[in-house]
């Protein structure tokens, strides 16, 4: 039996430590991990809890991230509560097994500390790894600070293991900005945390010897399509269960989460919609823009997959010009996030102007001043009634101004 690890009502934790504490409190059965910057402290701390007797779970050291997720898949199929963490290149190496995990409907929890993908090699935060997982069939939560990294990790188990969902969940936090910045975090008591998360009730577990099952079957054109359709349906249907879990979490913590968060949007004419830590910067910028007389607001995505089309449309309904911020090299297209938001707004009544800003690659800072420039450009668009700039622009980039595609006008 594990030794009690005492937590105070208020702690000073960084995002990594907060996530590792959530793993401890959730009473994980198996963590298989291969450390990588900047997520290393999550698994390192969990390893220390094991070594010091604070948890009853197993820590499995493996030879790569591919093996880490493979071991998680095995442990999850066996019926255990399973979690791990990774970043960037490690995430990339995990990709093949991410698809296996979701296809087998295994409720694994993966803490992803977002970091750029090489080349050039870079350890700082951007969303390239998060985007790499966007079609993998996992639920993706976004935390904007250490508190949220902790809260959403607890919620992740409850969503993943719900029998109507049975899908793996990632919790994303920005490398270094969230993962290594110590902040006040208000954890649940150990008792309240495990009571909230509950016990895992296995489904088709391989340790049930009275009912042996096959995982990882092969299907060709006669079966594959039906299985993938069922999986997609489960992912789309998970939205209401995520809402239920967030509501339940509010009851025990007092903290409210929504799949789409809105700030100063009641009367907003222009807005920035973003992911990760940029949301908090944009909120500061929006407040300053309001002092200049611009009705500015911010919308943030808490749940990137399943993508909340209807809630995004609802949040942006009265906005005239929207800046969608993508923190990942777009690779020959508009940013992926831009494409989601533009698709949602294309089918809205109001059909607002939607522009795309590529920013912050490899940990490049985005300043309040950069965000205010973005707001001012949205204001100009709103006043003109069309997109006055290139549709896609690069923000805070050295060299000649870089942008692509103009709006089509008669």
């Amino acid at each position, binding site marked *: 039996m594990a030794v009690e690890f005492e937590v105070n009502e208020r702690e000073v934790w960084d995002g990594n430590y907060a996530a590792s504490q959530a793993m401890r409190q959730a009473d994980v059965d198996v963590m298989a991990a291969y450390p990588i910057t900047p997520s290393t402290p999550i698994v390192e701390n969990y390893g220390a809890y094991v070594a010091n007797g604070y948890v009853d779970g197993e820590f499995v050291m493996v030879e790569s991230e591919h093996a880490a997720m493979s071991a998680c898949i095995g442990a999850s199929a066996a019926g255990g509560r399973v979690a791990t963490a990774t970043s960037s290149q490690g995430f990339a190496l995990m990709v093949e097994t991410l698809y296996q995990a979701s296809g*087998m409907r295994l409720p694994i929890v993966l803490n992803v500390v977002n970091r750029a993908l090489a080349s050039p090699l870079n350890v700082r935060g951007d969303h390239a790894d998060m985007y790499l997982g966007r079609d993998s069939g996992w639920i993706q939560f976004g935390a904007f600070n250490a508190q949220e990294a902790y809260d959403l990790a607890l919620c992740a188990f409850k969503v993943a293991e719900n029998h109507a969902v049975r899908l793996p969940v990632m919790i994303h936090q920005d490398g270094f900005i969230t993962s290594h910045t110590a902040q006040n975090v208000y954890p649940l008591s150990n008792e309240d945390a495990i009571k909230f998360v509950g016990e895992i009730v296995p489904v088709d577990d391989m340790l049930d010897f*009275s009912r042996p*099952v*096959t*995982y990882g079957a092969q299907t060709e054109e006669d*079966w594959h399509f039906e299985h993938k*359709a069922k*999986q997609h349906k489960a992912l789309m249907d998970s939205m209401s269960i995520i809402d239920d879990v967030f509501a339940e979490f509010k009851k025990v913590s007092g903290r409210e989460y929504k799949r789409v968060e809105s700030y100063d949007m009641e009367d907003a004419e222009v807005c920035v919609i973003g992911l990760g830590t940029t949301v908090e910067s944009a909120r500061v910028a929006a407040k300053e823009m309001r002092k200049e007389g611009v009705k500015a607001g911010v919308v943030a995505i808490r749940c990137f997959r399943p993508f909340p089309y209807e809630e995004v449309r609802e949040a942006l309904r009265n906005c005239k010009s929207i800046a969608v911020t993508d923190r990942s090299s777009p690779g020959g297209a508009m940013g992926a996030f831009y494409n989601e938001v533009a698709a949602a707004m294309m089918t809205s009544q109001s059909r607002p102007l939607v522009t795309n800003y590529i920013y912050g690659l490899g940990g490049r800072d985005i300043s309040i001043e950069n965000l205010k420039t973005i707001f001012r450009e949205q204001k100009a668009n709103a006043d003109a009634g069309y997109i006055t700039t290139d549709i896609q622009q690069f923000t805070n980039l050295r060299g000649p101004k870089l942008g692509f595609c103009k709006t089509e006008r008669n």
Partner: protein
Amino acid sequence: MQDLKLKAAEKRGVHQLGGDNLVGWDEVTQGIVLTSFEGDATDVAHKKAEERSYSDFNSYTATVASWRVMKPVFNIDVCIDCQNCWVWCPDSSILSRDKQMLGIDYDHCKGCEVCVEVCPTNPKSLLMFSEYEDLGDALASWPEKKKKEKK
């Protein structure tokens, strides 16, 4: 010659791989998880294959014979029941009971020739023939014991 009906349990290789009942997306199993047996399978490991209640999704009930172009043929008159082929067969397709070699499970054998390779008798008790070769003809054409070459 092997008795082809011997140990050919009722449900072995009765359908093509993939199943016959192509249900819709709303009816497929969650996570492509397939059950191996019908009902409670406690202690199934202690039962012989023909006594187990294999489910329709277990590969035991499916045949994969259409993949094979060459088949091993077993000659019971030469076999010494050493079990080498049973040990090495990668598809559990050597039928053996009480350490007696009985024949080949042609529903699951892929024709890889490993059994022929590991057979130690002279002549071999397992040899490869065309999939379409009649078993009687194959046995009739079995080679003689090889004499040691004089030095």
